[in-house]
């Protein structure tokens, strides 16, 4: 909501020392202060850039929305905010739906730097907090564009690679893994090699034609590795793992080399906005980026028909049997629909018959893009109200009996929105909820 965001905005822009809930990690704080001289200089530079650079869309649209808010008669912002939200959403609904193209299965390990250098404040509030915030937004956007994809999270701290979130196709699971800030407190030196080895091992079971990617957010200028990192790099090249790095401090030769050799992207974030841009450049699938650069034609060369199996999941309490992937005796697992072999994780290729096995709910996650609910029509005040339904068809809330005096464009004065298919009427909250979340009309079930 705008008022709250305004407070955040002020914090970001003000020079006052932001108080962090960091009473329990004095060590890292002291270290942060020790470095503060260089940090301060950097932050001046970064801020100067951020101020000159008002072209970022997220900043621009934000500023405009604040200007247009006005108080109502009672001096409250609530109705304005309400209208603004509804109008913004409705405008988005009425825009012509761009053709959405999904691509095949992607697997991404997000490697987050949790070393003490992440406590630097050259990015506000700290590199660490900003990284967590952008990582959350990145995950949501990524799953929206890659419904069949999976994300796992690995952290680098105290010289070790640390598994933070398992590979999962459920955005909620992934977000939950990084939701607890205090568990991710930065400490020690990062180890690129250890972390990449760990990321590599979690991707070993994946189907052959799915992409394997590692995205490193790296704030440190050093890495402390137990062995030769070039050997790790060579195995990544051999396993077709693509490594991309977003550096927050400066360019490191090894990072650049990793990206170049594996076909990934490398970038150094200059300021907060640029950091976000670099991350979000990695949201669309790589193949799609290439075809877009070549002037995406009508025929997509990557388009293909894939045979997939939808498995049966065995309950945790079923009799134990051996899995075909690890030769381990266990109860839970999935049965290949073609050969009935038992597999531990999906998606994967069946080890026995070679069928690609996926979870059908993962496919279904993108179907609302294919069959969107038609935008509801705005019911005008002039339409006769006598024989109409008196309550919202979805939530049964009674409609207002008298038309609102001031209704802005795009809002119904009587608070009713009608489905063009089934002609049932809905309230504005249900309208927004149905189009943004449910993607299915309660009246006609389409």
């Amino acid at each position, binding site marked *: 909501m705008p008022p709250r965001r305004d407070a955040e905005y002020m914090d970001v822009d003000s020079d006052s020392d932001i108080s962090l809930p960091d009473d329990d990690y004095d060590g890292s704080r002291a270290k942060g202060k020790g470095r503060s001289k260089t940090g301060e200089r950097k932050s001046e530079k970064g801020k100067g850039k951020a101020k000159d650079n008002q072209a970022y869309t997220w900043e621009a649209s934000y500023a405009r929305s604040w200007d247009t808010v006005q108080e109502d008669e009672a001096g409250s912002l*609530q109705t304005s905010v*309400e209208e603004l939200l509804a109008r913004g959403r409705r405008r988005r609904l009425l825009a012509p739906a761009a053709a959405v*193209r999904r*691509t*095949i299965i992607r697997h991404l390990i997000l490697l987050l730097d949790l070393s003490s250098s992440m406590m630097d404040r050259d990015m506000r509030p700290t590199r660490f907090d900003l990284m967590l915030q952008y990582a959350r937004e990145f995950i949501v956007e990524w799953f929206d564009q890659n*419904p069949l994809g999976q994300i796992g999270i690995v952290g680098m701290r105290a010289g070790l690679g640390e598994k933070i979130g398992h590979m999962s196709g*459920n955005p909620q699971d992934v977000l939950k893994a990084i939701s607890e800030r205090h568990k991710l407190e930065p400490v020690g030196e990062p180890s690129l090699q250890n972390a990449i080895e760990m990321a590599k091992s979690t991707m070993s079971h994946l189907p052959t034609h799915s992409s394997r990617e590692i995205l490193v957010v790296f704030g440190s200028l050093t890495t402390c590795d137990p062995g030769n990192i070039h050997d790790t790099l060579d195995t990544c090249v051999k396993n077709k793992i693509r490594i991309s790095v977003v550096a927050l401090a400066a360019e490191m030769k090894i990072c650049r080399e990793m990206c170049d050799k594996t076909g990934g992207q490398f970038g150094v974030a200059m300021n907060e906005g640029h950091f976000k841009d670099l991350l979000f450049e990695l949201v669309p699938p790589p193949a799609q980026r290439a075809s877009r650069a070549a002037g995406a034609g009508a*025929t*997509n060369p*990557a*388009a*293909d*028909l894939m*045979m*997939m*199996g*939808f*498995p*049966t*999941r*065995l*309950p945790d309490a*079923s009799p134990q*049997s051996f*899995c075909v*992937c690890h030769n381990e005796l266990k109860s839970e697992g999935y049965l*290949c*629909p073609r*050969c*009935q072999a038992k597999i531990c994780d999906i998606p994967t290729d069946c*080890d*026995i018959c*070679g069928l690609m096995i996926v979870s*059908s*709910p993962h*496919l*279904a*996650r*993108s*179907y609302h893009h*294919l069959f969107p609910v038609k935008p509801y029509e705005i019911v005008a005040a002039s339409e006769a109200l006598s024989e109409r339904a008196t309550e919202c068809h*979805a*939530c*049964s*809330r*009674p409609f*207002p009996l008298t038309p609102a005096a001031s209704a802005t464009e795009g809002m119904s004065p009587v608070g009713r929105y009608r489905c063009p298919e089934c002609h049932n009427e809905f309230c504005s*909250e*249900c309208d927004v*909820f*149905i189009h943004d*979340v*449910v*993607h*299915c*009309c*309660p009246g*006609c*079930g*389409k």
Partner: protein
Amino acid sequence: MNDPRGDHLSVVVDLSPTQWHLSALQPPANVYPLPLSSFLSQLLAFLNSHMACKHENTLAVFGALPGKSVMLYSSTNPAKNLQVMDSNSYPPFKLVDTTVVTRTAEELDALGDPDEEEPLGLVGAMTKALCYINRITLPPAQIPGKKQGISNSLVMPEPRILVLSVSPDHATSYIPIMNSIFSAQKLKVTIDVCQLYGPETVFLQQAAHLTGGSYIHLERRDALLQYLIMSFLPPPSIRKVLSVPTQDKIDFRAACFCHKTIVDVGFVCSVCLSIFCQPVPVCSTCRTKFPIKTLQRLNASRPPPNATNTTRTTTGTPVPQSASNPTTPALTQPTSTNGSSVHRPAQARSSLSQQSSM
């Protein structure tokens, strides 16, 4: 739980007249016949116990009827015409009982006697329940000009939906049901499913699994109330410490877009992820043309329709799910090199049979 806020329960009741007629048939058609009247009285006892658990608990009942869905009762919009109170009953219970029973009877009477029953409005009832939960869980500030709504709009800790179904899966509702499941995930709503009659439903199984709810396929139908109270009355947070029936096998089959049949092996468009039950040259959803080579390869590798699964299952029945035997694959040698050699002869065989048929 010391939470001052109550739990919200939305019950979606399947009121398909045909299925309830079948369910009420005496033995030998059913081992445990369950007529609608007996079901309703047990349901009312369950609803009353939900309200008795805590004074703040809220309740809504939705009915899924052929071709439509209705709200039968909600604790935020009490009935408009209050009946005469019976001095021998607790008024809130009496209110729920009379409202649900009279509304159900009204709706069933209004159906008339059509020759062919329209598809059930289960999706409509589920989406209505979601819209209702969305509305009552919105923070109070977002409800404009509704002062009396504020007391009801405290964010509920654990809203949940219980689906009491008697109908089999309707393959045309695959996409809308999946969409409702994902929106339930976003709202953190748990979906519980109790299949009272008929075969297992693939889609509702997935709904319960994906939202962390329980799925029960009722066998001892004379013990309905016991099942309801033991497994569905406690909120999900308490179920962790109780021993509730765990979900059996979960079937992840999907419905194809072309014929709306439920498939376990499908052909998927890589662009839009539409599912087809057979190789198609053009995706009907996004109009993508597929390479000829892929079609030839897929047609060749596809087993002849009647030979599905006969090679591996011990019983040789054409129903792959029920005939599955999880212990058999463990006996085979689980290496991928072996796997490819198993696969190749089958491919060769089916391509031979194709040539001979041409």
